[in-house]
């Protein structure tokens, strides 16, 4: 999509299956091909259980894919040795939804922020204070916060700390898994502004998972829509409102409640439930809830097809 930009991270035919206790196969990710470009944001949206978190856990090497390749600057990171994987963690860092659960509650902020740097021997112990101050400044927090504990901070401040910790190693890729979902709207907005500013300054690639399409469309360069382990549409961020073609993407857009929505307007909600990932139907994954579903949809699984610049749709009937 961005022809002149460097490809930082690319996945090729990623499949992840889990075996359940009853020996059934749960397919969390099914043939995922996505590309993240230097200094750009890739947003991934989808409902709970669609496999988006599994996907980023694969990218951060917390899980290994069943098959497929993850290329970081054309190097396949799936088969890295332990040492290589450890070294590669410096390049790909992650921010989680609940910062409280990702901090050690007994560590002070200064230790939380500098631990990754000490781990990779980037700084000496004597430099901790200066570095922590610098990092706090970067996320717009006062320097005396470094002697606090995570529990004596608000949710928004904690999320700033996790951002600072993730960026302390100056990674090339930052992965955010619902990083703002637990925050109030006004704080969410501040965090997004901060994220976008840091991206511009440091030229970071961001992969942002979210279930809020409106939020993600406000700062993503590309948006991938996921349903039941499949990518159903990849679309440039600014085109989503009018250009989205897949019926599921349209349904997501129609389910958004805008403050300025007229009360007379009928909300077009999708009926039914997401099928179980243990038993993915043959053919199109969206067939059970799609109002345009035809005979072919039940037989053949649609593949992602290019329909415009940087715009791919997996639907037989999207022209």
């Amino acid at each position, binding site marked *: 999509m961005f022809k002149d930009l460097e490809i930082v991270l690319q996945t090729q035919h990623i499949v992840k299956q889990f075996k359940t206790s009853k020996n059934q196969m749960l397919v969390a990710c099914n043939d995922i091909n996505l590309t993240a470009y230097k200094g750009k944001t890739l947003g991934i949206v989808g409902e709970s259980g669609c496999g988006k978190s599994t996907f980023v856990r694969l990218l951060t090497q917390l899980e290994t894919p069943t098959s497929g390749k993850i290329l970081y600057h054309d190097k396949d990171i799936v088969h890295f040795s332990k040492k290589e994987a450890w070294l590669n963690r410096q390049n790909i860092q992650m921010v989680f939804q609940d910062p409280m659960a990702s901090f050690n509650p007994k560590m002070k902020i200064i230790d939380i922020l500098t631990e990754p740097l000490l781990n990779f021997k980037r700084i000496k112990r004597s430099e901790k204070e200066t570095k922590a101050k610098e990092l706090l400044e970067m996320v717009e927090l006062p320097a005396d916060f470094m002697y606090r504990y995570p529990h004596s901070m608000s949710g928004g401040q904690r999320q700033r700390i996790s951002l600072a910790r993730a960026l302390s190693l100056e990674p090339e890729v930052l992965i955010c898994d619902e990083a703002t979902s637990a925050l109030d709207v006004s704080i969410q907005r501040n965090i997004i502004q901060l994220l976008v500013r840091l991206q511009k300054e440091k030229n970071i690639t961001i992969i942002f998972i979210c279930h809020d399409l409106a939020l993600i469309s*406000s700062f993503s360069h590309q948006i991938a829509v996921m349903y039941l382990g499949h990518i159903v549409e990849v679309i440039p961020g600014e085109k989503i409102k009018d250009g989205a073609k897949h019926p599921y993407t349209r349904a997501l857009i129609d389910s958004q409640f805008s403050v300025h929505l007229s009360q007379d307007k009928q909300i077009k909600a*999708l009926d039914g439930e997401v099928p179980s990932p243990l038993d993915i139907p043959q053919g199109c994954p969206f067939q059970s809830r799609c109002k345009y579903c035809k005979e072919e949809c039940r037989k053949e699984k649609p593949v992602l097809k290019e329909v415009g610049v940087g715009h791919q749709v997996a639907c037989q009937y999207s022209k």
Partner: protein
Amino acid sequence: MLQIKNLAVQYKNELPMIKDFNLSVEEGEIISIVGESGSGKTTVIRAIMGALSREGKISSGDILFYNQSLLGKSREEWQKLRGTEISMIFQDCGSTLNPIRKIGSQYVEYIRMHTKMSKKEAWDKAVSMLDKMKLADSENIMNSYPHQLSGGMRQRVGIAMVMTFNAKLLLADEPTSALDVTTQAQIVREMMALRDNFGTSIIMITHNLGVAAYMSDKIVVMQQGKVVDMGTRDEVINYPSSDYTKKLLAAVPEMEGESFV
């Protein structure tokens, strides 16, 4: 039908969490209380329900339900009111259901607690309520445990239970916050149908201003225990008086809103 006059609630002996809260609800009206976490929204609803935690107490003011004060009610009187006249929906109805009993047995017990009905009649009543909530295969749901249902289905079971006795007042504490957007849209549609079909009044707590704007007749904006804005939907959304409301409205992500890149 419901009038809250100068309500003040305090926890332990600290300063009041809520001061001077006034609200009147008419029949068939949907009112949303919005505000950020810790602004006292849930305390208001709990005070109406008479379900403040042990440390909390109403230090002044009065709550009138059809001109009767709710404050001096005894346990037995509350038992008659709750679940039949005033009902409540929680953020996650799944966690208010007993995890080791099937939906059917809990539902039947709930119905028989409030009216004289045979088990068979109660069962049929429950099934018909589930059908009304557009839950497919309701007999099957009655025979399921809560963990076998998805979040959206559990929420609909919760709403069905709450509506069994056509409660006049429904209190909803973040009824859609834990749900996905498509499920949220379904639940919002169902709650609005309640009002249209049964004339139920709803007081809803939410932090989603979009949902509040779509559903409500009146919106109350709270910040740190105080009401900073109150009025009809149109007044609050289009002509907010306080800076806080303006800030909140500006922060809501919109599909064609502000772009950061």
